[in-house]
């Protein structure tokens, strides 16, 4: 079979793409132009792309779990997490036990102007206090506003999706995003109920709230 010249083939490719973009519908409706469906453009401010659940968009902080252990801050490759904490006395776990001392976070800031979105902090946290959320719309006109404090970081918790199932053959366990009630992360409540949250049945209390 004689080869079609490449010049014509090329014209065919562009024409086909144009036709596909302009008339993506099949069957009788073929003749209705619908470039909105045929093109791959996402008209950003009007419509949004949904990144996959694992996408590293923004880091959310589950403050109840954080013990201000500084591991994340130390393993961050560009040291953009700032943590301050202090110790408070908490009631014993069992009646008659010794009074415990617990770390409370006073300051937890992540500077997104510096962050490389590497995910090391989330990974090293031993207490499940940091999570990735695929949210990406938090650009700011001023670079200083990219420093998210613990309130803002806690608010992101709402957007953290549940962990996905794995492909068959995996031995990984599907982790759970900790339950949080609608106002669990609100700092006023947190400060007021410091004792309640740190009470022996802290876990039960949190899940009951949610």
């Amino acid at each position, binding site marked *: 079979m004689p080869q079609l010249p490449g010049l014509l083939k*090329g014209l065919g*490719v562009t024409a086909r793409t144009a036709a596909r973009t302009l008339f993506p519908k099949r069957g009788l409706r073929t003749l209705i132009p619908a470039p909105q469906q045929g093109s791959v453009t996402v008209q950003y401010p009007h419509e949004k792309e949904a990144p996959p659940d694992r996408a590293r968009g923004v880091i959310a902080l589950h403050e109840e779990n954080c013990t201000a252990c500084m591991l994340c801050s130390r393993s961050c490759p560009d040291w953009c997490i700032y943590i301050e904490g202090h110790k408070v006395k908490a009631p014993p776990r069992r009646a008659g036990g010794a009074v415990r001392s617990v770390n409370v976070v006073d300051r937890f800031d992540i500077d997104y102007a510096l962050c490389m*979105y*590497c995910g090391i902090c989330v990974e090293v946290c031993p207490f499940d206090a940091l999570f990735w959320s695929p949210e990406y719309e938090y650009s700011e006109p001023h670079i200083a506003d990219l420093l998210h404090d613990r309130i803002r970081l806690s608010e992101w918790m709402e957007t953290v999706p549940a962990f996905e199932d*794995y*492909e068959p053959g995996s*031995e*990984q366990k599907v982790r759970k995003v900790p339950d949080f009630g609608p106002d669990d992360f609100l700092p006023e409540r947190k400060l007021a109920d410091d004792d309640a949250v740190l009470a022996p049945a802290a876990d039960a209390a949190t899940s009951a709230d949610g």
Partner: protein
Amino acid sequence: MTAATDLRSQQAYVAAQAADARVNVELDTGDMTLNIGPQHPATHGTLRIACQLDGEQVISAEPLMGYMHRGYEKLCEVRTFPQCTTLINRIDWLGSFANEVPFILAAEQLMGIEAPPRAQWIRTILFELSRIANVSLFLGDMGVQVGALTPVFFAFRDRERVLNQIEAVTGGRFHPNFDRIGGLKDDLPRGWIDETHAVMAKMRGFCDEMEDLLMGNEIFQTRCRSVGVIPGEVALDFGLSGANLRASGVDWDLRRDANPGLAWDEVDWRVWTHPDGDSFARYWVRLQETREATKIVDQLLDSIPAGPIMAKVPRIIKVPAGEAYVSTENPLGEMGYYVVSKGGLEPFRVKIRTPSFSNISVVPWVMRGTYVPDIITILGSLYFILGDIDR
């Protein structure tokens, strides 16, 4: 022949030479220095090529690099081993996952660990996916270099699907940071294998489209054939690697020849070479390799073994003293990491052998006597990533 005629012919020769010289002096037009770059659409980054031109013909061309030097070798020395991968991601930013692999393999070699098979499989899959993401952009970008507007849009359109797959697993489109010493950060999410099969079919369609739209185009062929010919020996002398070397007819592929512990041995694929060594051959080889990579991914996806994705690794990673060099066949060519450890948390020294750096070193040799438009064709077909040159 008598002495007299001898003398006469000699005189005639001298006279002719002198006349020639006079003519040449009269016709001598001054050279022009043309700086291509550091900011020029064809250098996709900040490479500068200082050219001496005679009209539109290149007398000499010298690549000047360093505008984008970020000092990653030094920065690695003050980062712990797990932190290094985030920097390494940013060397060849189009195929970032492939960058992590040789470094992690070197560290694993020093620690004497081996990743479990499932991790090796997934590593290989992601490695090939980043190759597809990287090279498919070249396939379109080469069109822009020779003046065709449309192919690059097709490349961005279809590469996005591959990036989406990478993002669905690793969480990052460009900087996955997914490889860990001893295995991987996480396993594949459910449904990913089927989606990737579909994407691979699409990518094969993309390759066909590129063949019809660009590679088969007679104008493209006139622009690229016998432009920037690099014979095999020269390519070896300059340390070229990857598709640039294979396009010069040298059958050399680290994936096959020195498989450092990934799953390439387990699947059926072939190394493509082209005898010509010109720009067209480089395009052709890369197109075939993209097709081949989709086949590798398809086969690997069907045969992922079950099991863990992480070997037993201490929580705090200290790499025993020693040195190791591991290189793999990255999208751009041989990328190697020479890692020296003194037994601490951080590497003592990391030397990064990047493919683009060696590939670009052939530029002065190959550019001599070409025309200005050929500079662009050759640069495009050598396919370098600036981050990979300057690190």
